[in-house]
């Protein structure tokens, strides 16, 4: 049994630029939206697919969930080809949509889930028990009999999570699950996913453009921009790829702005900002892992300065995201047509 739950090999997706009856008889130019995607996802991993709008995230998760057939290349999910074995793939995966329209609003949450449970082969008491369990899991048992058009966006998303789990899937694919909800509901949904949905048996793919969400939930993240994976790794790997220097902020008093020259030999670069309080904030860039900071602190004290605070600044996921997108823009070919 392969250790990878997902494997893609030179996966390319291209959408026709025009649709309609003409495309049935004639090959029309296509725009490439995923360009040679090669990646693997390990069993039990929470794998983020991050990128700006239009980057190709949803196309990738739709290929993995068998809703889109790739133009070329291949994708295997749980060892099965997503095109040739699509029925078998669908038996073993669950999908959570960010689109809240995917339910029948005239039916209650319970009735909706019971309907989908039947499509996954559950019936009778077994189906009812499973639906009740899941409604409790997502905290909707009290609203089970309420028609879904009375549900808030957050409640609909909870129901979508419950639907994704109906078949107790080995792989759960979540496509921007917090896209339509307010920040508080998004926070609650993330907590729900973290505490109740993720377990060691299940692999999760989370497509998102919320970097905080990726940071909070994912073991590894693939950044997609302009149809290409710009980088894949855990948070430290990603920071390492962009943050070539360590950055430290030191707030100092008792020294003049012009007197910090003595630090120049100790650090890669230094910027001094005068604060309203009369203090100075130094932004020091140093080689990673070097002894510069203790030496700098000692020298400042020796020169008569007082140190009020000293902190290490790390690139946020949003900054990494912006840098990855910029890298994608620089390396992107002109609009690719096939």
């Amino acid at each position, binding site marked *: 049994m392969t250790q990878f739950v997902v494997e893609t090999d030179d996966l390319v997706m291209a959408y026709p630029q025009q649709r309609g009856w003409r495309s049935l008889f004639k090959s029309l130019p296509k725009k490439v939206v995923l360009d040679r995607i090669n990646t693997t996802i390990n069993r039990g991993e929470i794998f983020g697919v991050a990128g700006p709008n239009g980057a190709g995230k949803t196309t990738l998760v739709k290929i993995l969930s068998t809703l889109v057939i790739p133009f070329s290349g291949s994708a295997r999910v749980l060892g099965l080809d997503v095109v040739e074995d699509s029925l078998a793939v*669908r038996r073993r995966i669950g999908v959570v949509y960010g689109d809240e329209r995917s339910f029948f609003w005239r039916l209650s949450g319970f009735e909706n889930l019971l309907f*989908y449970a039947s*499509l996954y*082969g559950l*019936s009778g008491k077994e189906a009812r028990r499973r639906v009740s369990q899941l409604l409790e899991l997502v905290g909707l048992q009290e609203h089970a009999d309420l028609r879904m058009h009375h549900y808030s966006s957050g409640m609909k998303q909870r129901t979508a999570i419950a639907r994704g789990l109906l078949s107790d899937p080995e792989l759960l694919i979540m496509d921007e699950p917090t896209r339509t909800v307010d920040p508080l509901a998004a926070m609650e949904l993330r907590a729900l996913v973290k505490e109740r949905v993720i377990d060691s048996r299940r692999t999760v793919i989370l497509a998102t453009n919320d970097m905080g969400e990726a940071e909070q939930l994912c073991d590894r993240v693939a950044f997609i921009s302009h149809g290409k994976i710009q980088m894949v790794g855990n948070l430290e790997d990603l920071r390492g790829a962009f943050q070539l220097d360590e950055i430290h902020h030191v707030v100092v008093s008792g020294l003049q702005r012009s007197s910090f020259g003595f630090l120049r030999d100790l650090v890669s670069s230094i910027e001094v900002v005068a604060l309203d309080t009369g203090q100075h904030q130094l932004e020091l860039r140093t080689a990673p892992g070097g002894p510069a900071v203790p030496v700098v602190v000692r020298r400042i004290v020796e020169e008569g300065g007082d140190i009020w605070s000293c902190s290490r600044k790390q690139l946020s996921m949003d900054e990494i995201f912006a840098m990855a997108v910029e890298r994608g823009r620089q390396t992107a070919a002109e609009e690719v047509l096939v």
Partner: protein
Amino acid sequence: MTAAVAYLRRDFLVWSSYRLAAFWQVAGALGIAGIVYFIGEAVGDRANSIPEENGSYAAFALAGVAFFDMLFRGLGTLSASVSEHQRAGTLEPMLLPPIREHELLLSFCLFPFCISMLRTSVFLIFGFVLLGFWDSANGLSILAVLVPAQLTFLGIGALSAASVLLLKQGDPIRLAYSVAMLTLGGAFFPVDAMPGWLQQLALLLPLTHALSGIREGLDGGSLVDVAPQVAVLTALAVVCLPAGLLAFRWAVRRAKQEGSLVEY
């Protein structure tokens, strides 16, 4: 099978949640039956060119309307369901569970078929109980005609659903067929009343054979009497049903290749 029952239950729950609309679907059939009756009264003896139903236009048209309603729904339900799911955003979730395309199609049409049976029953009960028509009807002959007719229309309906998936708003198959059925199918006036060349054209339509066989059955015709119509309709069903299902399967695959499943 579980999927078909699930769809039947879901469609019933949605249908019954619109109580007034559900009521009007049945009441509407009664209203149309009443209109047909009054037209028949107005036409009176001038309908004596109608060979079936002893020259009663009301009986002729009521039978035509009742079964046209049923067969037309068989034709239009699939494309309407696909279109509705595209607009509601539920088509992709429908295609995610492990069920095959033909199961999905049959599930789509099960409840609408039940509703059309109900409406047809309303027309027939109206004619039989209130107007005293068809007292010698042969149910077995009618059924023998209806089954291959429905399967034929299901096949054409699947072709029509495939065209909705590929062409989105346009549904040329349904449109062309509806117009042809309305004008040439013999639901509202006898095919014999049309010019000869149109009568030849009408013979190409399954509705012509279906309504002719059903009227034969309503007049008490035996299985032998309806055998020609059953033979034609069975041949059409053998061609249309597999063709429709294959076309729908191909259309789903094509829409997945184009990434256009949810577009409408």
